[in-house]
């Protein structure tokens, strides 16, 4: 202590959110999940909701989200997180209830539960990680896999006649009467991380203010599934994912603003 007197609470400029525990993360280097987990933990902490939050984790890479953020959780069957969140929030209206789901969980096997929870206007937030691939099972085609993109189940690239088209789930969600806030963010730069955090905060506040459903899509990287280095994956995402999944608010009725892109 005497050799480093500047290490003291009043000098802290940055620290891990208290809600993030020290469990060793299973995510791959460069994966967006770690950053998004941190943002979720920070926002819950900053809102003072640590004792009132219940998260619902999916099946997919984020299945173990409950291992890292120190709040109460429920682990859902594949795709069913929005149904579970619906019941929790209806029965405990003063709790902050959110789901954290990947593209396969939310936009493929759980499409019905996602759309109907959003369309009922449940006062929940869905955090939607879109990395265009099934990461946990080893890199198979996802509903959001881009045209021409290679995965282990479309090894010659996604093509319309065999695989159909990538699903822009947030665009669908924005059309639903029950949603108050639909936004698409990314966490590839410091500025983008700040914007994503603001979006998560906005969504959680909507949930607590009974404004309806909020969807925060985070266009993400999967360096393992994409078979790239983290730096290459970020670059590839900007060049290929962002043009197809443009960032910005798709809908924000709370701010009473017209939908705007970018």
């Amino acid at each position, binding site marked *: 202590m005497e050799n480093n007197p500047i290490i003291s609470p009043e000098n802290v400029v940055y620290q891990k959110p208290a809600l993030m525990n020290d469990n060793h993360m299973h995510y791959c280097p460069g994966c967006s999940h770690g950053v998004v987990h941190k943002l979720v933990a920070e926002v819950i902490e900053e809102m003072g909701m640590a004792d009132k939050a219940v998260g619902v984790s999916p099946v997919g890479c984020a299945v173990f989200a409950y291992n890292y953020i*120190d709040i*109460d959780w429920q682990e859902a*069957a594949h795709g069913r997180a929005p149904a579970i969140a619906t019941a929790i929030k209806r029965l405990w209206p003063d709790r902050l209830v959110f789901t954290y789901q990947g593209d396969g969980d939310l936009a493929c096997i759980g499409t019905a539960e996602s759309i109907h929870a959003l369309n009922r206007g449940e006062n929940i937030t869905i955090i939607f990680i879109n990395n265009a691939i099934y990461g946990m099972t080893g890199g198979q085609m996802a509903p959001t896999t881009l045209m021409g993109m290679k995965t282990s189940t479309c090894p010659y690239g996604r093509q319309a006649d065999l695989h159909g088209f990538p699903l822009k789930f947030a665009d669908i969600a924005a059309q639903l009467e029950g949603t108050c806030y639909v936004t698409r963010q990314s966490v590839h730069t410091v500025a983008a991380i700040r914007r994503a955090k603001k979006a998560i905060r906005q969504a959680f506040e909507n949930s607590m203010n009974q404004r309806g459903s909020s969807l925060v899509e985070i266009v993400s990287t999967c360096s393992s599934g994409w078979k790239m280095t983290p730096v290459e994956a970020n670059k590839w995402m900007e060049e290929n994912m962002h043009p197809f999944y443009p960032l910005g608010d798709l809908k924000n009725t709370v701010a009473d603003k017209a939908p705007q892109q970018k």
Partner: protein
Amino acid sequence: MEQQEITLMKGNEAIAHAAIRCGCDGYFGYPITPQSEILETLTKLKPWETTGMVVVQAESETASINMLYGGGGTGKRVMTSSSSPGVALMQEGFAYMAGAEIPGLIVNVQRGGPGLGTIQPSQGDYFQATRGGGNGDYEVIVLAPSSVQEMADFVDLAFELSFRWRTPAMILSDGVIGQMMEKVVLPPFKARRTDEEVISQCPWASTGRTPGRQRNVITSLELDPAVMERHNLHLQEKYAKIRASEVRYEESLTDDAEYLIVAFGSAARIAQKAISEMRREGIRVGLLRPITLWPFPAERIAQLADGVKGILSFEINAGQMVQDIRIAVEGRTPVAHYGKMGGIVPTPEEVASSLKSLLMR
């Protein structure tokens, strides 16, 4: 003393009234014949304005059972109802609830199958209820009402059992009991537990972090084989305790019986009538009516098997419970099955003549 209110209503309506009266916190369901009156009655009674009970029409049975998982996982008394094909769709959720040790009530008002089958009554889901269609080693507590009164009474009982053992419980009814009207005395009003009561009574529930306990994670997932085996052994120990302590059945005229009919639910009502007719003819037949299909009254059936010339399993299906009877009886006495399918409900005369032809040759 509060005066008993006697009313006339359908079994399905009795379930809805009883749910509100026994402090149910939430109902999540999807319409399907022949049980839609449960959701219809609940939405008509608007319990959210009186007791605060939540009623949600879900987008599918898959969503309903997962809402049950979510609500039950927070320690609330939650229920769903459906009929055979809809309950088939829920099987995955039962396994998750059993694995994560979540209480919850499922009502199955059975119709004929397989597949879309028919909307007429059946008891073809005995296997579905007692063997389970979900994955892994798990059991569901199954109660079989044979009257509208029991439809009302079993709602609270099922919740009590489900919370006592932290495992899903089912009321396995059928289209006859669900649709028929009978006199019923509804259970007295019991207040819903407050949030504070839920938190203190269910320290395992994911209600938001609470001082004095670790944070709660409701999950059925565990990748460490040793830990997962320990969890499975714990479940099996629990199931053994349920088998030892929660068997329920009703007997009539078994003291002097030469023959025994085993029947549950609506079939037991028909069997009762068949037995009085046979008794008039001098044939001494008794009835054992399992009230819990799981745990099954195997021990009692084995005792009775020693004193009778034969046992008839009368079920409105192709012969499902008869397997459990044979396992219980272990060859001590002949065991036959009689039943009909396709939505046809047998008459007492048919039951009597089948007993004579199958067991009295």
